[in-house]
């Protein structure tokens, strides 16, 4: 020890441990979160690469091989029209991700904008936004979606039919877009209030943190304080909420499709597959089991990931 020449010691250079990297380390140590993340990534790739993963078209019927059990040629068997269930589940994953991502995106944009404005400016703007939020949350989700579907679906469909007859443009035969429009629209309409509340609460709490006062004492402008202090600190809980929200949106879409107010057959959605399978589950349990298992897996995966992110981004709450 005493003979070691101290002067030759190189200057210690430590890589910065950013909060995000730190959070990633914590997330990686959480087994459930890693499981959730893995499932989410696999499902996302399934949704992206759908057509390349399966030899069958999700619509092509083979009436000679109806209601087959799982086998090597049909992993999840076939349904009552001889359609490959695996292909339909894969395409259902597409539907689920498409709906979840678009709905969550719209809901986050609306929610973050309204919530941040309400939290930052307060006063009458805050009161109006909160009133709007409370009002939206007080409407039962299902009821609203059913009402929107019942009142808008037929008029839009008949308008498209008349446009098709007038123009013969095949675009107007694609009623799938009506489904998606109504599903996205009504789900986004009921999904934004939690984000608005979260962001408002975040902004309110961050605004009263001492580091905001410290920034004001330095003379920094409101714009700098908002962009460098408020927004980055509000991001963590929002990421957690979005991760959980994606899972919720998938379940919600399945629930609506199950009840026949979401994505309509023949477009595959886990919800309408479960609904179809439920009628015959005593004879052909795989028709119910396959979509239900995938839906369950997706829902659990997103909630594990959300929990893991929560613990990783808010380490103080975790310990």
């Amino acid at each position, binding site marked *: 020890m005493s003979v070691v020449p101290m002067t030759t010691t190189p*200057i*210690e*250079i*430590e*890589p*910065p*441990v*950013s*909060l995000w990297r*730190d959070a990633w380390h914590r997330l990686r140590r959480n087994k459930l979160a890693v499981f959730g993340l893995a499932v989410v990534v696999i499902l996302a790739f399934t949704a992206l690469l759908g057509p390349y993963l399966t030899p069958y078209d999700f619509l092509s019927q083979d009436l000679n091989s109806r209601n087959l059990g799982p086998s090597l040629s049909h992993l999840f068997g076939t349904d009552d029209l001889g359609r490959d269930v695996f292909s339909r589940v894969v395409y259902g994953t597409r539907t689920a991700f498409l709906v979840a991502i678009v709905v969550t995106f719209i809901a986050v944009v609306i929610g973050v904008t309204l919530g941040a404005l309400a939290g930052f400016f307060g006063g009458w703007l805050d009161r109006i936004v909160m009133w709007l939020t409370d009002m939206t949350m007080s409407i039962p989700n299902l009821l609203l979606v059913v009402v929107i579907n019942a009142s808008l679906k037929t008029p839009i469909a008949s308008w498209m039919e008349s446009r098709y007859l007038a123009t013969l443009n095949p675009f107007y035969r694609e009623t799938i877009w009506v489904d998606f429009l109504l599903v996205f629209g009504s789900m986004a309409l009921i999904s934004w209030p939690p984000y608005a509340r979260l962001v408002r609460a975040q902004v309110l709490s961050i605004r009263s*943190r*001492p*580091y905001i*006062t*410290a*920034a*004001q*004492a*330095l*003379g*920094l402008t409101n714009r*700098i304080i908002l962009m*460098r*202090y408020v927004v*980055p*600190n509000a991001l963590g809980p929002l990421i957690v909420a979005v991760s959980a929200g994606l899972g919720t949106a998938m379940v919600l879409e399945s629930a609506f499709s199950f009840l026949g107010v979401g994505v309509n057959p023949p477009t595959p959605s886990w919800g309408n597959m479960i609904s179809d399978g439920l009628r015959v589950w005593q004879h052909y349990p795989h028709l119910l089991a396959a979509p239900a298992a995938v839906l369950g897996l997706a829902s659990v995966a997103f909630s594990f990931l959300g929990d893991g992110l929560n613990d990783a981004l808010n380490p103080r709450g975790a310990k």
Partner: protein
Amino acid sequence: MGVQPLMRIENLVKHFHVRLGAFGERAATVHALDNITFDILEGETLSLVGESGCGKSTTGFTLLNLHRATEGKVIYQGKNIVELDEKAMRPYRRQLQIVFQDPYSTLNPRMTIGEAVGEPILFHKLATKAELKDRIATLLADVGLPPRFASRYPHELSGGQRQRVAIARALACQPKFIVCDEAISALDVSVQAQIINLLLDLQQKYGLTYLFIAHDLAVVRHISDRVGVMYLGRLAELATREELFEHPLHPYTKALLSAVPEADPAHERSRQRQILQGDVPSPLSPPSGCRFHTRCPIAMDVCSKAVPEWREARPGHMVACHAVTEGLSG
């Protein structure tokens, strides 16, 4: 110690309007500061002491225009800074800095130490981008931190290290005056001593003036040039350190000083303690006249009727007490 007043606080008043009751149906006013008048001399350390909620921190915040003053003036460089808007205030913000109590919450958790210290330098254009790195390293060295800390985040640092960063950040502005708002209260005792010595060293090096807000009288006695005692939003007494600790005039100051424990057990046992009865009244409806009269051991009739005058009882020794005025105490 210089003799020039750096800052002159005249009749500063700060009231907070609050709403009480389950539905906020009752409007009320918190009399946080009432008619505070004192000078802060260039290069001195002026301490403000008092119980929790007596308005020490409010004084610091109000004279830096972080709280809008209700009335009164804070004259700095010939200008009443408490009436300036944020934009006009900006050049003064650079010169008038503050270090807060809780180092865990005064640093933005998403900014590295280097970013935090560099931000005011760039914002106030005190160095070019090329000089920035050296400047940050110099500032970190000033507060006793190695330059490699620049790439760390606040959560990697201890409380004492964070408070050093907060001080470096205030220094980055090249200020003339720093309010230390309970700047050491949240730290361990061993770390407190280091931070105090650091503050004293920096004062020497850069000719800083401190307004030191604290409730630890031993610390205050160690570092202050002058000490002000506050009670319920008013100044009770203000004098040089020796004068105040040796010849306190105000009964509240006497009670406060008698509460300081002695290190010597023999002394401690024989010591006369003066225990005040009751609690501090609510600043929502402060007592009439002298605010201390409800707990004062020598209160007279006049005390509940008239507000005692803030006057110089001995050279440089300001006090607000009817008994002192009438020669009954002191």
